[in-house]
């Protein structure tokens, strides 16, 4: 336990130092945040268009869908910033040989890597998500209590951890290809399935996003709980996160050992 706490504090130190590096480039930072906001606003406009043609999707009305969208954005905002470093392993560290530098630190390489995040612009997703969530909760006449906000933030962090673990698993491809960022990205993008109620999909996709790559636990099940549709399954998501991370780290270490024995 002590080790876990030490590692988390180390991770935060890495995050802090890379945040300092980002903030030096003030203009880059501001431009990045605005472009990210625009991207998300375009998706929102698209939803408006959809709902001009239909009353509900799989029984979910416009506000409920927007709440789901908001909750998703909060998790995506957190994971986008906190686990962005994983995309760099192949194209940046391994290709340039900088990976050796990370392996020489007295710290697990994953901590150095995910601590070195450049995607501060994800804060745009986080803020947009939070605002949208609160507005929709009010519109749906769900009382916005401090407890609910804490619950939403907690399960959003858990959701971000689930995304982080899935990305970590696919980052293993870095040991074979420099283009691992594309591998991670293509699986990561499946989270968009859960921006809509999963009941609209066929059996295959449902199994995929609840069991194989459990993105449904990121925002869909939590939103069900906030809407009072299914209040129990949400408590499974911390378990899912812990199990996924355990598997991810084990697999990652195995792949690293294999990589070190073949040479580079």
């Amino acid at each position, binding site marked *: 336990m002590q080790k876990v706490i030490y590692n988390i504090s*180390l991770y935060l130190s890495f995050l802090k*130092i890379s945040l300092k590096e980002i903030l030096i480039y003030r203009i880059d930072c501001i431009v990045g945040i605005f472009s990210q906001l625009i991207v998300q606003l375009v998706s929102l406009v698209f939803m408006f268009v959809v709902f001009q043609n239909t009353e509900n999707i799989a029984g979910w009305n416009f506000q409920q869908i927007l709440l789901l969208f908001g909750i998703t954005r909060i998790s995506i905002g957190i994971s986008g910033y906190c686990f962005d470093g994983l995309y760099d392993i192949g194209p940046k560290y391994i290709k340039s040989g900088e990976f050796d530098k990370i*392996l*020489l630190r*007295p*710290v697990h390489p994953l901590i150095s890597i995910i601590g070195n995040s450049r995607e501060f612009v994800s804060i745009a997703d986080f803020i947009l998500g939070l605002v949208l969530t609160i507005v929709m909760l009010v519109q749906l006449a769900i009382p916005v209590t401090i407890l609910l906000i804490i619950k939403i933030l907690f399960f959003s962090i858990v959701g971000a951890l689930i995304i982080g673990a899935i990305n970590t698993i696919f980052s293993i491809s870095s040991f074979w290809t420099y283009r691992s960022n594309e591998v991670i990205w293509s699986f990561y993008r499946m989270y968009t399935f859960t921006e809509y109620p999963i009941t609209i999909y066929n059996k295959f996709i449902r199994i995929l996003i609840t069991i194989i790559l459990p993105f449904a636990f990121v925002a869909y099940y939590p939103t069900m709980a906030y809407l009072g549709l299914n209040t129990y399954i949400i408590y499974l998501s911390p378990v899912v996160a812990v199990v996924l991370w355990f598997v991810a780290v084990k697999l990652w270490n195995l792949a690293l050992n294999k990589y070190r*024995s073949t*040479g580079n």
Partner: protein
Amino acid sequence: MAIIEVKNLVKTYKIIEKEEGLIGYFKNLVKPKYKEFTAVNNVNFSIEKGELVGYIGENGAGKSTTIKMLTGLLTPTSGNVIVNGIIPNQKRIENNKNIGAVFGQKTQLWWDLPVIESFRLIKKMYKIPENEYRKNLKKFTELLDLEELLEKQVKNLSLGQKMRCEIAATFLHDPKIVYLDEPTIGLDVFVKEKIRKFIKDINREKKTTVILTTHDLKDIEDVCDRIILLDKGQIIYDGEKQKFKDTYGRYVIAELIVNNIKDNIILNNAEILEQNDNKLKIKFSHDETTIVKIMDEISKFCNIEDIHMKEAELEDILKEIYKGVHTNVKNNDATSKNAI
């Protein structure tokens, strides 16, 4: 017990055999043909605490591969490496706490930030106690002249300034062993001297074991007491630096300024390395002749105006070894090992 123990170390790489032409490259894409390449071939040595060892050899001799195995970055194909009682590739993170490393021009500092920020994070990573950190920082700042650099962004430093900070960062946690791979590459002579002096000072004070690989043999000449010479993945010499020079460098190189060369110069016990209108460069051994005899001989062919002599340096000797002049080096390997 030795701090570094290397036994029968072998590293073999599988490399893809390149075929000619674009079609060949496509063939490789579908069905690659591998061929084996042995980078390190049955290497043995042991290093005691506090030794300053020069690990030298030509490009591709297997130096970096060995260092990578010592640091646990690579897993040996066969053989054993024990560093400070640990097998580095099995307990890499544990081993990392005891070591420091500089690899050429790759920086471990955070590029966009002031140097001191990197030092603070290193302090946290290695759990350096506050007072140790302060003491070391103060001392290194003095020795390497860092005062003005600590608050500057790394990207704004010159190569020499960066390397001085890099060296300080490497020694900050009082590592027991430091691997320096080309630490002085591209630096001017003053920075080189500063870094060499720093390494020697820290070694004297803290008994830090240092393994230095470099192509600048002045580094070795200045810093190391012992050299391990590698050729095609095998050790061809391991022993004291002075003994190496005494054994293979028992000759003198003399440069003479001459005029009025009358004839083709032929000398009995000296070899002519270079000759033009008024300059003559010769090499001879003290065992075979003396400078007086040689001057006597030369003066038959021309007038000697000036003479400049120097003892053989490591660089001269190594050049000869690479050229294959001393074919007996390998045979002496065993005896030199016994000497240490």
